[in-house]
């Protein structure tokens, strides 16, 4: 385990010691552990899944702590009404780290409308979606914590706005092992987390029927090309009876999606997609679906360590993607 002066996996006592140092921290862990931590300059979110330097694991005894590099930091918590202003509060020179609770209205708002927020894509924002143990999906809600007070929220986002010294900046990166397949182009009439009918190669059709008839593996996401950035939308469920498909993130009106090319050996492919020399990583997180489908428990993922999450933020909400932030020096 990490020593209390370093980031990574650690006991709540070690995390408390780090909090007392006054450093800006992002802490992931089980709800009970987060509630025991002292107030300080930190934000947190619930998840018992991590990839530490020792490998992937599920633990209710340890928390994962990330020290946020910067010259100054401030914390905000935002309800749905104030979330559109999140980047107005961000420093002109720095970055923001956001944590949103899974299944919340505020997450749905962010997923739908973040691309329209003022300063979106101009000021860097990364983050993750807090979740719960997969055995407790129906019993316990995901939550985030404002470390200044220790308040726990299930319907607010917490954000750490970090100022950087002059001559330093950050870059946002993703690791996505999927690419668009050769199948039909899919277009949706409205931005939504679920769909029934859509345009399939320009002709009206039912997406659930198409998935079933084509034998498409619903572990593979839909992929859209945003000027070279491949953005996944993962399939949560295909309801054959209702002829409806539900997604983990919204599909956007006006964007053309395709089914991802199948990946033959997911675990190997995912580990191979990890950056060899990513630079100085300030923050990273990875998707629970990658954790599950790549069997990451016990596996190492190079320098990409951090919480295993129920959605990732690299500006907008992403699925089945690892996100990392690197420090650039002039």
């Amino acid at each position, binding site marked *: 385990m990490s020593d209390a002066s370093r980031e990574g996996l650690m006991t709540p006592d070690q995390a408390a010691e780090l909090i007392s140092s006054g450093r800006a921290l992002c802490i992931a862990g089980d709800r009970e552990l987060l509630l025991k931590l002292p107030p300080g300059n930190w934000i947190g979110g619930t998840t018992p899944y991590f990839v530490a330097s020792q490998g992937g694991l599920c633990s209710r005894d340890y928390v994962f702590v990330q020290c946020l590099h910067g010259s100054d930091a401030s914390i905000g918590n935002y309800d749905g009404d104030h979330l559109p202003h999140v980047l107005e509060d961000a420093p002109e020179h720095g970055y923001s780290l956001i944590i949103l609770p899974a299944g919340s209205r505020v997450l749905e708002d962010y997923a739908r409308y973040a691309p329209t927020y003022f300063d*979106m894509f*101009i000021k860097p924002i990364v983050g993750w979606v807090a979740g719960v143990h997969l055995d407790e999906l129906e019993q316990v809600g995901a939550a985030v914590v404002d470390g200044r007070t220790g308040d726990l929220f299930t319907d607010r986002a917490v954000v750490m706005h970090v100022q950087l010294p002059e001559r330093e900046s950050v870059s*946002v990166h993703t690791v996505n092992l999927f690419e668009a397949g050769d199948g039909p182009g899919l277009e949706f009439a409205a931005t939504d987390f679920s769909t029934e009918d859509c345009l399939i190669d320009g002709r009206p059709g039912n997406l659930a029927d198409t998935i079933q008839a084509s034998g498409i593996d619903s572990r593979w996401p839909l992929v859209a090309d*945003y*000027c*070279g950035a491949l*953005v996944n939308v993962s399939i949560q469920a295909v309801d054959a009876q209702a002829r409806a498909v539900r997604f983990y993130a919204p599909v956007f009106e006006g964007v053309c999606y395709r089914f991802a090319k199948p990946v033959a050996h997911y675990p190997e492919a995912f580990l191979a997609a990890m950056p060899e020399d990513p630079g100085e990583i300030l923050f990273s997180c990875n998707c629970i679906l990658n954790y599950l489908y790549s069997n990451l428990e016990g596996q190492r993922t190079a320098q990409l360590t951090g919480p295993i999450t129920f959605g990732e933020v690299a500006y907008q909400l992403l699925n089945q993607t690892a996100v990392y932030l690197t420090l*650039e020096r*002039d």
Partner: protein
Amino acid sequence: MRDTELCKRLLVLQEPWDISRVRVDVQSQELHAYLTTGKPWFGRSPFEQHKWRWRHVNVGAYKTYIHATLPDEGGIANEPLPFLGSVGKDYTHGLARRVIDCLQAGLGYRQVCELLGIDVYLAWQIRHAISEGQFSGAGDKLAAQMSAEEDAEQARQSIPATGDPVWFNLLESDQPFHANMLGLKLLLARTRQEFARLASEDAKIIRVNAVRRFFIRHENQLGDEIAQLDKFRSQAEAVSYE
């Protein structure tokens, strides 16, 4: 008292400026004041007179817009009168001064927007002008405080101005543009998608400004992309001459 006379007093107009017309839109809570000097602009036909529109300090709860034609050089002195703005700007000198006063009093950027009822795009333009030293009375401290975009001066040399057609060509086109930074890829994809649907020129300029701001902020990391802009312009010109 006539509404134009009342409005003239509310806006504290100075001679020779007067108000020819006032339009109040109750639904959108907007007040539009059309200014005149009462003199013809010698040597220019009415069709050659460019009418400017500037956002001014609110009158009560009403967003206030000033419409006027600026005199030529040698005509009425182009002083920075509070109720007028500069060519190419979207705000009056009076509104800019009010924003500066608020910032100097220690208010945050968002608080200024809320207090004055202006949107963040407009506030950003004013702040950008402050950091470029366009307001001599703003003071060094404030200029320094607002200098997060400090390399704007240098950036202007290599990054085309807002009105440059290259931005419109870039955003109206579906030609490939190779971007290295994730933020630019996402911004460009989204802006191109929106651009086609926009009917208003003002809305398009706001989108152009957003993309241009990205280039200014990240100029040091965007050498390839800036070079592509030039190439893009050349290609656009080549196409237009065919």
